[in-house]
């Protein structure tokens, strides 16, 4: 029953998406009102069918309806309810179904938000492009990855449950959906850019709206990337949060190009510069999300994330090729119509800083892309398997990251147009002093690692610029209008909300950079086999093994090792890393135990555990808390910048206000 209903909904979604795309894209330069209306109705039909199909799957999972093939594959009666729902995206077929549902949600949002500009042909073309993407995904579901098949043979009484790695940590409940919201959300900006190029019209109004639409998926992607790091930290047990795993890179790549776009779009909006370039970035971002999904799901890459080689890979690659080729052809046809704006006048200007910023982001993207695909390249040409490890990536990520951090401070500090050297020096002197002071403070605290200190200096410099940028207008307003400081702050902050949001994001980035700089060069590590009563020392901690215990849960058995933690002789707590044995899986999966403070984390991870002894790895990871805090600050800043203004944001009134504040994001 569920299987049949699900299949019908998928066919309906496919039919609606395909016909809607045809209706929307074949109406010529000015589609009729009727045609527009029909296309929008079909888009809504696609969206609701995809969402309902996903809900049917969730119901089937909850009912343990093993007659549905996907439930038989990932369901289990012993799995807790939350994990059962999460099983939706634990395997290939379900995750693509979920992909379609998320696209459905974005489609509904787009339809709602574009109600008032249905007469703009670009709006209808956008619907058409979104539906083309929807057609591909529903076709995948219907043809090769259908989760709603009837289970062959007798219906099983119970199933194996989802992949143990996914069951092992609560972050798996939110990390994948965040990434999906980020990946799938890039469809709308892509469709908008595509539609604008198709119609040969990209204006400041369209770019502004585009940036608005990219901010939400960008924020989801930011959260997704950071949560991915957090998950690796909490689950994989090697003491770090970022391993340049192909799938981690896959989520980082579109983040880089989307970030570059957010900055490039401000040049476009403000100066009419690089209009075509901004479009290239949007198109690339979407192509990279498709590549990311491909990397995760095709099995071409050997990664903790890719579970199987699947028939879906070649289809994804074909889709990727079509997206990219269509984008290139479209750019070749239309790029000349995107007239350049005022030429750049000086290297000492905010424009120039934005251009350098974009250059660095693009180099970063290319380098990560090459590092990620190099193993395939080496295999294709030399017939050998190589793995490109962290050191390769760190070699370029560190200098580029530091340069971007510096630019993050230089850009907002310089004026648009042209600064005289004197002005530039005056604008940068105070922040530079703060950066230097930051370095001195950390040197005084005993740090001597040059790269780390440079990164911290750059971060301090950028934070100083961001804070000054937020505070200065308040003081200026008070001087001009008098009144209390709070009143001045309130009215200034309201008018410069988007800019302040951007600066808060910058502060968050500076925190993240500092955390990475410190944690990557000052980790302390110890390793050993400990018997009950024995101990292992790491830094000024001493870890005494109190004993082992086994806890049985319906779907797994957990074996804990209880370590009493002493710091300089004083007991500070108990940490209990565990090994988990899942019913249907051969290898046990560890769960590290972490004691977190603002200064550092004490991180214990088991290599093996039996009734006699524990193989323990202990790390002191300094500064890691600031990574997650920095992420929260970035999120807060994005929310402030993207929060809808009281007046319609795309209207001409705020357009002016935003243009004057378009300094940072």
């Amino acid at each position, binding site marked *: 029953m569920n299987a049949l209903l699900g299949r019908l909904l998928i066919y309906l979604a496919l039919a609606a998406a395909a016909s809607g795309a045809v209706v929307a894209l074949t109406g010529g330069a000015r589609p009729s009102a009727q045609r527009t209306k029909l296309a929008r109705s079909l888009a809504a039909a696609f969206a609701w069918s995809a969402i309902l199909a996903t809900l049917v799957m969730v119901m089937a999972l909850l009912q343990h309806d093993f007659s549905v093939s996907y439930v038989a594959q990932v369901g289990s009666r012993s799995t807790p309810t939350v994990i059962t729902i999460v099983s939706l995206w634990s395997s290939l077929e379900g995750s693509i179904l979920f992909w379609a549902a998320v696209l459905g949600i974005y489609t509904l949002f787009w339809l709602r938000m574009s109600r008032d500009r249905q007469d703009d042909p670009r709006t209808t073309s956008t619907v058409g492009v979104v539906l083309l993407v929807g057609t591909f995904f529903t076709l995948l579901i219907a043809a090769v990855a259908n989760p709603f098949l009837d289970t062959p043979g007798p219906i099983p009484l119970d199933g194996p449950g989802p992949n143990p790695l996914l069951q092992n940590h609560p972050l798996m409940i939110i990390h994948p959906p965040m990434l999906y919201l980020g990946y799938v959300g890039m469809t709308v900006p892509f469709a908008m850019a595509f539609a604008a190029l198709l119609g040969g*019209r990209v204006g400041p109004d369209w770019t502004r709206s585009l940036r608005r639409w990219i901010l939400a998926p960008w924020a989801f992607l930011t959260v997704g990337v950071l949560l991915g790091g957090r998950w690796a930290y909490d689950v994989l047990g090697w003491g770090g949060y970022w391993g340049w795993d192909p799938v981690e890179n896959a989520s980082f790549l579109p983040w880089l190009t989307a970030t570059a776009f957010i900055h490039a779009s401000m040049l476009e909006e403000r100066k009419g510069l690089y209009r075509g370039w901004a479009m290239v970035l949007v198109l690339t971002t979407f192509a990279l999300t498709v590549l990311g999904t491909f990397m995760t799901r095709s099995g071409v890459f*050997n990664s903790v994330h*890719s579970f199987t080689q699947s028939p879906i890979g070649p289809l994804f690659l074909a889709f990727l090729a079509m997206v990219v080729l269509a984008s290139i052809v479209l750019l070749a046809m239309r790029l000349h*119509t995107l007239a350049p704006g005022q030429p750049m006048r000086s290297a000492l200007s905010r424009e120039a800083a934005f251009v350098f910023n974009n250059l660095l982001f693009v180099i970063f993207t290319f380098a990560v892309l090459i590092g990620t695909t190099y193993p*395939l390249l080496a295999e294709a040409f030399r017939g050998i*398997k190589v793995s490109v490890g962290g050191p390769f990536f760190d070699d370029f990520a560190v200098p580029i990251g530091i340069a971007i951090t510096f630019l993050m401070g230089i850009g907002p500090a310089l004026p648009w147009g042209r600064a005289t050297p004197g002005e530039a020096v005056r604008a940068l002197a105070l922040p530079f002093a703060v950066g230097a002071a930051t370095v001195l403070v950390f040197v005084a605290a005993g740090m001597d690692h040059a790269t780390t200190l440079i990164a911290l200096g750059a971060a301090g410099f950028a934070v100083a610029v961001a804070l000054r940028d937020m505070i200065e207008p308040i003081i200026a307003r008070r001087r001009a209008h008098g009144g209390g400081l709070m009143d001045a702050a309130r009215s200034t902050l309201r008018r410069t909300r988007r800019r302040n949001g951007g600066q808060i994001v910058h502060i968050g980035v500076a925190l993240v950079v500092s955390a990475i700089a410190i944690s990557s060069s000052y980790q302390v590590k110890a390793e050993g086999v400990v018997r009950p009563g024995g101990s292992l020392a790491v830094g000024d901690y001493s870890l005494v093994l109190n004993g082992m215990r086994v806890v049985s849960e319906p779907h797994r058995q957990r074996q804990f090792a209880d370590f009493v933690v002493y710091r300089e002789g004083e007991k500070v707590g108990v940490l209990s890393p565990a090994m988990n044995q899942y019913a249907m899986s*051969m*290898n046990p999966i560890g769960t590290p135990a972490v004691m977190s403070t603002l200064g550092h984390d004490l991180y214990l991870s088991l290599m093996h555990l039996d009734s006699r002894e524990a193989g323990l790895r202990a790390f002191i990871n300094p500064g890691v808390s600031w990574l997650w805090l920095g992420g929260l600050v970035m999120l807060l800043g994005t929310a402030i910048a993207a929060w809808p203004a009281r007046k319609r944001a795309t209207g001409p009134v705020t357009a002016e206000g935003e243009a004057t504040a378009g300094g940072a994001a």
Partner: protein
Amino acid sequence: MGHEATPEAPPSRFSWPVMAIGLVIVVPLIAILAVGFQHDPHDIASPLIGKPAPDFALRDIDTGREITLASLRGKPSVVNFFSTWCLPCEQEHPILMAAARVYGDRVNFIGIVFEDTKAKVNDWLVRHGGHGYPVLIDVGGPAAIAYGVYGVPETFFIDANGVIRDKVKGAVNFEVIRSELEAMP
């Protein structure tokens, strides 16, 4: 909507340079990804298969006596690279010991320690039920390099004439050992 800033679509003029730059960047990438499909990422082929096995001269962890591959000719050999820090190695260790009990009279079983210390290995072997066959210490890793070991465990199946017949990456099971040995000429 501010349509005033957006002129009507001008006539198309195709830009071949843009097309060319785009294709130069994108086509190789897609070609590489396509090539990736022909391979299982977990199956690491060895160019050594079908070739004479590189000889080695390594010291036995128990006796300190030097053992060379050449001295093992005349019988097929199963050479297993392992280390104490690898979980699959723990899994396959009892299987290798069982196989050595069953086939030990007809086949040489050799363990070679990969990037590990003698003390740790001794401790590990004690904890994992000993070893029914010689375990050799590869100081500095010349044998691992000669055999192109990519990550432990890796097991090489060498025939009586000293030719590498196959290589298995990851933990072996008994079936694999049996079928490999039965396939030996």
